[in-house]
């Protein structure tokens, strides 16, 4: 049979080892110095959050009233607050709270947003209309205002702040996934999956969902940064973590009386928030470049 065996031109030369799409994204992520620095900062805070209790020089709540509002020194690197507690220790412990709120609120919004977005995008029609209008309504409120409203309904606590932040971020993810699903369901591999007799639900979860994940990962990383700020804002407003908890936003709020005399009570928690958020943002930008198909050479 003429032409049955493929010509050499039909066979792509493959020297390097098999690399999946995620592997390639990782390679291009590594190339960006800024992204790696961001990832480094994030990793640093994650490690701090995990081993916090063992490295913190003092406990969260060890008060030492004679030592209140001490300036930074060798004994207390970041100084002490109005109750004589070591600020460094509190920031180390606080990392756990902030990251916890950041990760879990975003995971919550990603899961809820994905389900709603997929259903809206794939089934369309009135389902889409209803879900999209709810998203529109939620996005019409300034997000922090919505979060405050949710917390005032649920009652102020760290857990409720987390729930509130998760809820206000749902429409962002929902819309993102919906638009991605809309474009992916027109792809030919979806038609060809149908043509081999695959079920709708299987197509949704094994073909459409994995292919919609790249922008969600990027948005998710950036959203962790926003969630941390929002948690701090709610803490600052007294709607988040409760009194003795070393939540960074709460620490900022408590420091406002001593702004002039003891600025370190404000500066260090502020820097902690700023650094974490910066880390996530840099990492998110790097991921966006790595996962954006247009950036591929």
């Amino acid at each position: 049979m003429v032409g049955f065996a493929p010509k050499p031109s039909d066979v792509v030369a493959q020297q390097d080892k098999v690399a999946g799409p995620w592997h390639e994204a990782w390679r291009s992520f590594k190339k960006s110095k800024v992204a790696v620095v961001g990832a480094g900062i994030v990793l640093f805070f994650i490690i701090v959050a995990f081993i916090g209790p063992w490295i913190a020089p003092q406990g969260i709540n060890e008060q030492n009233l004679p030592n209140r509002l001490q300036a930074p020194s060798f004994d207390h690197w970041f100084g002490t607050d109005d109750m004589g507690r070591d600020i460094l220790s509190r920031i180390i412990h606080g990392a756990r709270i902030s990251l916890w709120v950041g990760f879990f609120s975003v995971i919550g919004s990603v899961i809820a947003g994905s389900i709603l977005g997929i259903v809206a995008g794939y089934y369309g029609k009135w389902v889409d209309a209803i879900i999209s209008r709810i998203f529109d309504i939620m996005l019409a409120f300034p997000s922090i205002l919505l979060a405050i409203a949710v917390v005032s309904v649920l009652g102020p606590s760290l857990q409720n702040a987390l729930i509130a932040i998760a809820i206000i971020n749902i429409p962002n993810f929902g819309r993102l996934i919906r638009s991605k699903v809309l474009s992916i369901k027109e792809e030919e591999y979806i038609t060809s999956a149908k043509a081999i007799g695959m079920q709708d639900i299987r197509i949704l979860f094994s073909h459409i969902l994995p292919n919609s994940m790249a922008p969600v990962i990027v948005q998710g990383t950036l959203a962790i940064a926003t969630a941390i700020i929002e948690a701090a804002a709610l803490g600052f407003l007294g709607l988040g973590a409760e009194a003795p908890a070393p939540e960074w936003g709460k620490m900022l709020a408590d420091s406002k009386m001593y702004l002039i005399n003891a600025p370190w009570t404000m500066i260090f928690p502020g820097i902690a928030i700023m650094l974490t958020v910066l880390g996530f943002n840099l990492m998110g930008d790097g991921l966006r470049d790595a996962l954006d198909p247009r950036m591929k050479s």
Partner: protein
Amino acid sequence: MSERKAILQVKGLQTSFFTDDGVIPAVDNIDFSVHEGEVLGIVGESGCGKSVTSLSIMGLVPSPPGKITGGKILFGDKELTKLSDKEMRNVRGNDVAMIFQEPMTSLNPLFTIGNQLMEAILIHKKGWSKKQASARAVEMLTLVGLPRADELMKEYPHQLSGGMRQRVMIAMALVCDPKVLIADEPTTALDVTIQAQILALMKDLNERLNTAVLLITHDLGVVAETCERVVVMYAGQIVEEGPVQTIFKDPQHPYTKGLLQSVPDMRYKKQRLYSIPGNVPKPGSVNTGCRFAARCEFAFDKCLTQNPDLYQTATVHKTRCFLYEDQEVSTHDRTLVES
């Protein structure tokens, strides 16, 4: 010519799209059948309803706005338009499979070739183990002429060239031994040498596995090389049908003649290449008369008022043109000749 059993019969199929501008009949009352182990070509310009026909058979017409509004599609004794979703899923891939125009986008970029092939197998072969499926996948990759099938199983679509991907698509379509393979412009996106290889492969598999092929194309060269019978479509209707030799040697419908004249021919290279004036009318825009009348050089009064039937002009040749109205061969003769 030995008569083969028709395995896929399309009878009076009508597929319409319900849009804001009204109902557009993309496929309007077409009849044809695919016989066991044959290669049937459907030819026509863009927008004449070829792809909608194939999607209708697969039950994959995008709905809304599309819908099959009339007619029957018979696979053996199964009426495909009447099947439930679940029954239809069983037909797809198992009885009738399809490959598409764009091999570059027909494979999911996130999964390996092996992964996708095995998925296609395990959908229909419920009791199979992964090992069996993997062995079958390797066997299919080898069958479609891909070298180092074992390694390919672990590779991703982006690592393959267009021709290789189309081979993978063919392997995937044939993995469950379908009776009919619908190929919707399978070579349009490939360059000419690869085109020839893929066509040769399809023809070879058609002979070896006895899979009937419904080849949809706009390329008459492809038809001449691969098909046994040809159906020419124009504006949602069949305008001519017959064996490939007679269509090429003795085209009857003015549209088919026009199509054949617009193929470049080295013997007449001094002459300007012929082109049929005008465009395919928007489906549904021509309601009275022959749909080709506006572009036809032979059109007369009757053509503008009545739509011709498909006239049987020879035992196995049909034409939708008033020029052949009087030459119609009665179907009685046909049965005599064929029996």
